[in-house]
């Protein structure tokens, strides 16, 4: 199934018949059925789906960490062959450089791209301020809370001024209050920078609150089950989550996902 970009804006990245099979022979697992998907420029696209549906695989293929078994991924029309600083990645947790303080973590990208120490430090300071950690710039990751660590991860990815941000359940390990605050912050950052974002989450609310596009995936092997275009990403009001429209869409996606989650559970039990 080919899903074209919903509006007329340019396509930033395109999955063309991408599938993924792990292992070989009888143990092989089809993680992803051939799938095509456009990521429009400046879109905030959320992938939601049951565990094991291959949404992280999709992100890893676009990041260049994994290769597709069939099909290809294009960014600006050019096939993705490996990691590239044009695509910044934020991980769930445990991806910070624990031996570097916050400032050095965030300056890592600019340094790797050949900026001078002073220039990299200046860039880092700006993004550290953007995520509100200026007073913690000299601290080490283990001295920070989980939420602060994720802010560092976000600032680090932004410091290279990437064209696409890939975020793999960045808030999944955080407590509910921290998650909500960070969601508001991400929304503000996205409204300011208008980066193209591919975001993976388990949380329907998170997807609706942040995304301009929500893609619901089926249980393994992953296929696109539905595609929605919520309008809440443009709102600055955290209370949109209580609006009638929000609640209705949430119920729709919940129903879609429930079916898939049950299928996923049966798959688990059958193994």
């Amino acid at each position: 199934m080919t899903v074209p970009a919903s509006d007329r804006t340019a396509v930033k990245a395109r999955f063309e018949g991408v599938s993924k099979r792990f292992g070989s022979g009888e143990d092989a697992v089809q993680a992803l059925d051939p799938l095509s998907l456009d990521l429009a420029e400046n879109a905030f696209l959320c992938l939601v789906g049951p565990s094991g549906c291959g949404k992280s695989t999709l992100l890893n293929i676009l990041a260049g960490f994994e290769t597709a078994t069939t099909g290809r991924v294009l960014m600006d029309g050019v096939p993705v062959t490996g990691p590239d600083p044009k695509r910044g990645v934020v991980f769930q947790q445990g991806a910070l450089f624990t031996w570097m303080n916050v400032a050095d973590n965030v300056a890592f990208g600019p340094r790797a791209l050949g900026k001078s120490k002073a220039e990299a430090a200046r860039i880092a300071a700006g993004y550290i301020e953007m995520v509100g950690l200026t007073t913690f710039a000299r601290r080490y990751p283990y001295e920070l809370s989980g939420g602060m660590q994720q802010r560092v991860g976000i600032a680090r990815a932004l410091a290279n001024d990437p064209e696409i941000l890939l975020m793999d359940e960045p808030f999944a390990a955080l407590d509910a209050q921290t998650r909500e605050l960070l969601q508001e912050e991400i929304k503000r950052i996205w409204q300011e920078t208008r980066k193209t974002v591919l975001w993976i989450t388990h949380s329907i609310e998170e997807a609706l609150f942040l995304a301009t596009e929500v893609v619901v995936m089926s249980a393994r092997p992953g296929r696109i089950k539905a595609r929605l275009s919520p309008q809440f990403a443009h709102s600055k009001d955290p209370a949109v989550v209580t609006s009638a429209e929000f609640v209705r869409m949430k119920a729709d996606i919940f129903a879609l996902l429930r079916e898939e989650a049950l299928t996923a559970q049966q798959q688990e039990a059958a193994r």
Partner: protein
Amino acid sequence: MSAAARRAARRSRWLNLGSFLVLLALWLLLTTPLVAGKPFVAPLFLPSPMAVGETFMTLLNNGYQGKSLAYHVGISLFRFGLAFVLTLLVAVPLGLWMGMNESVKAVLDPPIEITRPMPKLALLPLLIIWFGIGEVAKVVIIVLALFPILSISAMQAVRGVSQRKIQAAYSLGASRWTVFRRVLLPASLPGIFTGIRVSIGIGITMLVGAELIATTAGIAFMAMSAADFLLTNVVIVGVLIMAAIGYTLDLIARAVENRVVHWGGKEG
């Protein structure tokens, strides 16, 4: 460190000191003539702490078998130090390389894995035939013992580096060399230091073994040859000096580790 942790640390220090003092008191009790003018244990088997202290002063002033005490300690430290530094410089880079490259691992694994469980002291007679009774055989035997420890710990450390950190670095535009220098190497340091501390203990043991055979100097040689003349005082001084060397080296290794691995290997 929190106040509770500080209190616990202080408590541990007092208990350490107490335990040490109890052992010393026990030694005194066993060697002091309390009943009928005779100690519980004859001085031939266990001299008193004071007698050992006197012997230490005598050795310090007069040396042992024509060589000063500092020379005996120095030659032992030289053997260990040379072997340790040589191994560190070769085994750690090689281990890191094995951890990063499957082909290198496939080539180097068999010699390391086959010789790893072999008691290296058993090779000493052979090494003496090959290298004579000079310093070479002693250094080589220590190198052989430390090599697998340091290379395997470096290999496992680098293989254990979280895939996410490596991916994060590449996605930030890092070259392979930058990933090695700023991610793989620092992330491997805690594991490498564990190997270093284990190899200090084993290295000292090997040193003692090597010095027991065909030597004319060294702190273990001093203890061993003194035993031939039943000079128990000298034996005990030798044993205590060896213990002190091992303890001090471990202390140094720990201090260096705390400086280099300042994040304590903690996940963030």
